[in-house]
């Protein structure tokens, strides 16, 4: 699965996107965030306030309890501040 990061999530993780092979334990967006947090300090720092992180699956906003295994592309980012 392609995973993209934006704004300070991207900066703390240190890459803008990467290919992730999901372990079977990852079903929902919440699971993906928990999995990524175990990958290292940058991830843990970027995602420390889990509930705060927004998730998009195939470029659509999804809730944390949404299954995301079928998505080709998932993105994690802070609350938006455009406009």
């Amino acid at each position: 699965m392609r995973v993209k990061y934006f704004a300070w999530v991207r900066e703390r993780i240190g890459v803008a996107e990467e290919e992730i092979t999901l372990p079977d334990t990852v079903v929902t967006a919440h699971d993906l965030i928990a999995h990524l947090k175990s990958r290292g300090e940058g991830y843990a720092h970027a995602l420390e306030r889990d509930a705060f992180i927004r998730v998009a699956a195939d470029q659509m906003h999804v809730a944390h309890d949404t299954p995301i295994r079928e998505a080709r592309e998932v993105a994690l980012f802070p609350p938006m501040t455009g406009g």
Partner: protein
Amino acid sequence: MITVAVTAEPLDLNVWLAQLPQTEGTGAVATFAGYCRGEAGRLAALELEHYPGMAEGEMKRIATEAMARWPIHGVVAVHRCGLVTVGAPIVLVATSSAHRDAAFDATRYVMDFLKTDAPFWKREHHADGTVGAWIEANAKDDAARARWAP
């Protein structure tokens, strides 16, 4: 008719407003432009990061919902990406309709949802040349969005 765009070029408001449908039945055009503030000399610019593809997708979705909700003739929504200097426009939203209430409501609706749902993030660039903090999301924007709940 809907026109949405994300561009790294300075926004020429008149060029974009020319995309708004105006027929002989159009009696009202409501326009909003958001500008980069200097914050009393503290800032030189705002840097706008966005999620290419999804940003345009969300803008189109929001505009489509506005077209379904009000009898408007069209929507133009354009958003800058990249570095926007103090005083320059960041975003332009305009709608046209027969009567003013629909145009006022629809333009404000699109702006309110654009703030909370379109994947853009702002970072401060200080007047002294240093790169500052990412701007934090504003609870007022969530409240503004909530006002449109059916």
